[in-house]
């Protein structure tokens, strides 16, 4: 055994976490080695698009690492790290793939692909989640024309390029390349499944318009170099119509990556569940089940660069057997400063975990992370935590004291349900994405943890125990609210445990007319349409939003369904078996009478909702336009609209020069026109995958974009209604006098110079825009007094905004009223 091959700390993976750990080890003068399988450091960031802005979230977290890091371009960050590696003389081995790790502290054996062997006292695992890119698996796959990544689509022009793959990356690459090249995309199956809706539309449109070629059901057979030929390579593919030969310059393989999990498990690291999203089991010092084997970074569940770098520092301290206060300690201490008791941060965390059964089984690192994103409140007695119909969706747990939940119809009688320490609330809005169903008041000596929705959803995905408890309570509370307010909770819990949660695709049938009615269905998220067969046609008679029930008659007697219920958007529904409910009815004879009254009322209100055929057609039309998920829809009454476009002008004038609505575009039915304008969806498509989390929802429902938008365009692609677009910030307008007297700039109501989206007008003289484009969309004029400018500026009263509560009224008025 070679002495140079023995180190104190071996680090696998030179991402932000691994680099930081190696630099810390180097700084301390500890013998170390850092293995990186690619030829450069921070491979994932190297693969980012040229000039991409990398963020340093979370902003509040201080950085603790020998390497420097702040938000900036990909190039600046990579250069800075390269300098740091030089400065600390980090022992980094590029092109070294570790194939196995065995042993435990103090003697690990690491085998490399090259056959070399290393020995280390401790091992730090920082390989990230990217995995290794899948290869084509055909003769010629190693030719230099094959690549797994695409830095800058603008680099290539006039080439014939084959993009292999049918995922988001493949589509984005293919479409970007098609601007300057002849591009073929190779899809192994017959359609593009499992891609973002925006990308699906993008690729189908591009193929349809002939911008790029597409082979379905196609597989690569071989790739050969053809020196001297018109195109230097030839790719042979197998299609439905036999073999095809494609002369090309380049093949881009975007066929995914092999997830690292298998390799990780082979090293002895355990996972709590087979769920691919599950995180490895670690103690609070990032140590796995194998003593001396540490896991940090994305693989440990910390996808952010700064977190990983801090962990790199901490884990080296731990590996050396030293104590270190985590970098987030002061942040947590500050959060806990208001607490009525004085304890250290870790004591407080332990106390919270112990007091709240929901979190007891959660990994303490994960819990710490959750608290870091959460707020700790000490509200005064009687203070409202949130109010009914607020659009907030955070989740609350009670550490100490009590709260009271006030439920009940508006104007009607209300009930107050007390909750004590260890319990939680806010799960309705958390799960459905809809408005608050009740008002919560703080009791005496109350201490609450408020966690953001996405952190809790993440937790539910990784910790089964949490998911189960929240799911069950959601159902029990929903039954209690809707049907059995007098029934004690423990009785409902047994029913809830037997309820079934099902997911439905858009358009899928929940139950059909004529089916046996044997269960109640509670819409947890999404919404459904209710339709009946009248003659030859399916006529939609109403729509039901999340948090409500359908098929309630199924609970009382054996009947048949008198209507068909379909999901209008992807929907989650809980179905409750009638037999489970029957037990409850037997135990509580009074409940049956109560239930009958409740249902009678519900039938009456359903009947009101059911209008004529015409209104049914209008509902169907509006559902197609997004009514199923809208919270506020801009409609134009075409009997009144004179086409003056004052609405668009007003929008542009009040929003820095870019109108967020296109009046003329969009469909019309029965004189109701739905212009291209934001629907403010219940569960906004645009809010998914926003890297800087710049799209927010205000408590009263408006979905708006903050200034920290980086212009990535994800939201534009994800919006099914095409209401978001990317625009340059326009030149500021001159004052009225200087415009009128000196002709400066553009006048009131004129289009702003440089406001045209799609053109690099602003500051484009040198060919490069000065500022990136940013996403713009309707923000419901949240900063304007007097409400939406489009409606206020309409001279004839044609423009109106309708909320779901007003849909029914509007529909009956439109269909019958004229």
């Amino acid at each position, binding site marked *: 055994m070679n002495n140079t091959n023995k180190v104190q700390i071996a680090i696998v993976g030179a991402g932000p976490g691994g680099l930081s750990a190696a630099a810390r080890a180097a700084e301390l003068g500890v013998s170390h080695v850092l293995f990186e399988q690619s030829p450069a450091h921070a491979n994932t960031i190297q693969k980012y698009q040229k000039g991409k802005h990398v963020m340093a979230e979370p902003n509040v977290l201080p950085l603790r690492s020998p390497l420097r890091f702040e938000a900036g371009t990909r190039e600046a960050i990579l250069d800075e790290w390269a300098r740091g590696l030089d400065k600390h003389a980090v022992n980094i081995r590029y092109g070294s793939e570790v194939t196995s790790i065995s042993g435990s502290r103090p003697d690990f054996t690491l085998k490399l692909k090259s056959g070399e062997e290393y020995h280390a006292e401790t091992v730090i695992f920082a390989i990230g989640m990217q995995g290794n890119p899948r290869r084509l698996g055909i003769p010629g796959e190693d030719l230099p024309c094959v690549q797994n990544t695409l830095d800058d689509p603008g680099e290539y022009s006039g080439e014939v390029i084959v993009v292999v793959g049918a995922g988001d990356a493949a589509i984005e690459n293919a479409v970007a390349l098609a601007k300057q090249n002849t591009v073929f995309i190779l899809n192994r199956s017959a359609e593009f499944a499992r891609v973002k809706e925006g990308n699906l539309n993008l690729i189908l449109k591009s193929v349809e318009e002939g911008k790029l070629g597409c082979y379905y059901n196609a597989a690569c057979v071989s790739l050969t170099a053809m020196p001297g030929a018109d195109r230097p390579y030839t790719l042979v593919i197998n299609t439905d119509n036999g073999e095809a030969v494609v002369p090309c310059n380049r093949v881009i393989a975007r066929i995914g990556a092999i997830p690292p999990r298998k390799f990780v498990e082979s090293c002895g690291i355990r996972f709590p569940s087979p769920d691919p999203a599950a995180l490895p089991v670690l103690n609070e010092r990032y140590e796995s089940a194998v003593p001396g084997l540490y896991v940090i970074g994305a693989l440990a569940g910390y996808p952010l660069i700064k977190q990983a770098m801090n962990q790199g520092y901490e884990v080296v301290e731990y590996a050396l057997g030293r104590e270190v206060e985590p970098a987030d300690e002061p942040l947590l201490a500050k959060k806990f400063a208001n607490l009525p008791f004085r304890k250290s941060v870790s004591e407080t965390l332990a106390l919270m975990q112990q007091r709240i059964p929901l979190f007891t089984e959660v990994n303490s690192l994960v819990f710490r992370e959750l608290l870091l994103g959460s707020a700790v409140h000490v509200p005064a007695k009687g203070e409202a935590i949130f109010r009914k119909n607020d659009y907030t969706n955070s989740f609350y747990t009670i550490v100490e004291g009590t709260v009271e939940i006030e439920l009940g119809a508006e104007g009607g009688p209300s009930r107050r349900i007390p909750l004590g320490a260890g319990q939680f609330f806010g799960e309705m809005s958390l799960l459905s994405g809809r408005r608050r169903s009740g008002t919560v008041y703080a009791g005496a000596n109350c201490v609450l943890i408020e966690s953001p929705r996405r952190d809790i959803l993440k937790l539910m995905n990784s910790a089964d125990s949490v998911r189960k408890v929240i799911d069950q309570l959601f159902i029990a509370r929903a039954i209690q609210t809707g049907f059995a307010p007098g029934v004690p909770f423990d009785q409902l819990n047994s029913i809830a445990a037997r309820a079934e949660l099902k997911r439905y695709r858009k358009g899928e049938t929940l139950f059909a007319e004529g089916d046996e009615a044997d269960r109640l269905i509670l819409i947890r998220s999404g919404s459904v349409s209710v339709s009946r067969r009248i003659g030859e046609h399916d006529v939609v008679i109403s729509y039901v939003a999340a948090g409500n029930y359908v098929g309630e008659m199924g609970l009382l007697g054996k009947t048949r369904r008198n209507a068909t219920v379909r999901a209008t958007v992807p929907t989650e529904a809980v179905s409750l078996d009638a037999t489970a409910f029957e037990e409850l009815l037997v135990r509580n004879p009074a409940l049956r009478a109560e239930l009958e009254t409740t249902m009678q009322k519900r039938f009456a209100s359903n009947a009101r909702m059911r209008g004529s055929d015409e209104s049914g057609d209008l509902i169907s039309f509006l559902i197609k336009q997004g009514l199923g998920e809208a919270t506020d829809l801009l409609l134009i*009454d075409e009997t*009144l*609209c004179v*086409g003056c476009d004052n609405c668009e002008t007003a929008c542009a004038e009040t929003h820095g020069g870019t109108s967020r609505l296109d009046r003329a575009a969009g469909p019309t039915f029965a004189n109701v*026109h739905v212009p291209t304008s934001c629907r403010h969806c219940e569960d906004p498509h645009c809010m998914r995958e926003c890297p800087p989390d710049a799209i927010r929802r205000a408590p009263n429902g408006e979905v708006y974009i903050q200034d920290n938008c980086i212009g990535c365009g994800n939201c534009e692609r994800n919006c099914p209604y095409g209401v978001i677009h990317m625009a340059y910030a326009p030149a500021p307008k001159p004052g009225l006098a200087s415009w009128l007297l000196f002709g400066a700039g553009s006048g009131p109501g004129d289009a702003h110079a440089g406001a045209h989206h799609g053109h690099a007008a602003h500051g484009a003289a040198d060919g490069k825009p000065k500022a990136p484009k940013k996403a713009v969309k309707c923000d419901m004029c949240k900063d304007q007094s007097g409400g939406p400018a489009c409606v206020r500026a*309409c001279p004839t009263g044609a423009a109106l905004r309708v909320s779901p509560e007003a849909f029914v009224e509007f529909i009956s008025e439109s269909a019958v009223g004229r």
Partner: protein
Amino acid sequence: MHQSFLQYRGKRYLWWALSLCFVAVLAYAWHQPVSPPNGGTWLGYTLGTIGALLILWLTALGVRKRSYQSAVGTVQGWVSAHVYLGLALIVVATLHTGFQFGWNVHTLAYVLMMTVIVSGLFGVVMYLRFPERLSANRSSQTREQMLQEIADLDQRALRIAANLPAEFAEAIASNRDRTRIGGTVLDILRGRDRSQVSLAGDDGVLQVVPNPAQEHMLEWLGRQLSRSTDAERTRRIDELVNLMASRRSLLRRVIEDARIAGWLQVWLYVHVPITFALLGSLIAHVVSVFLYW
């Protein structure tokens, strides 16, 4: 919940306007001046002041409409009041004149004012009459989309014509290039189709003929169709006929769209400039009255 500007808030401003007219007429009937009724009596001055202030306020709609940040009522409310109080001005101003007209700057102001009011009334009629037709004609397409569709049809037709003798492609291309929509204001308002097409006659000589509603184009294709003996050729010509028929209806819709939009706008070109002329003559009227009367 939503209503036309005429129905705004239960026709609130209609009642205001009627009350104003009623009071004015009552005062006029009750008032017995020494001289015959005219603008110089105390009632004449009162009505004149009310009228002038009304004119200024009515003009202010143009400012309010462009004050997009303003929260002083809604534009719809302003329009509603503008219409009703503008009509009331007929009564107020006429009573102010005491029915004394002549060839002078005072009557000029009156005539200009009436022109503005009549043009405005015309606008109201247009606003009531046309929106529904505009929408029905568009049937969920914007004008740009219709034009784009016409361009697409032409592209497809050219592709088909590529497999037919050269005169077909020439005809389709000239049909595309010589399509003329719009023109003078009158052309637009009358919905005239000034398109032409150059077609090869039986002698092979190209001739430019007017082609409103694709008439000659279709006729020419029909003639070619009837002469075709080849099945494949017949099929292609038939396809062209279908495309050109779609083109005709699209073109009609575009022209109709422009026509309606024209009627919805044209009155403003009278209403607004004459308002400014009115303001000028109103100043002349007021100044001359105070200086020289």
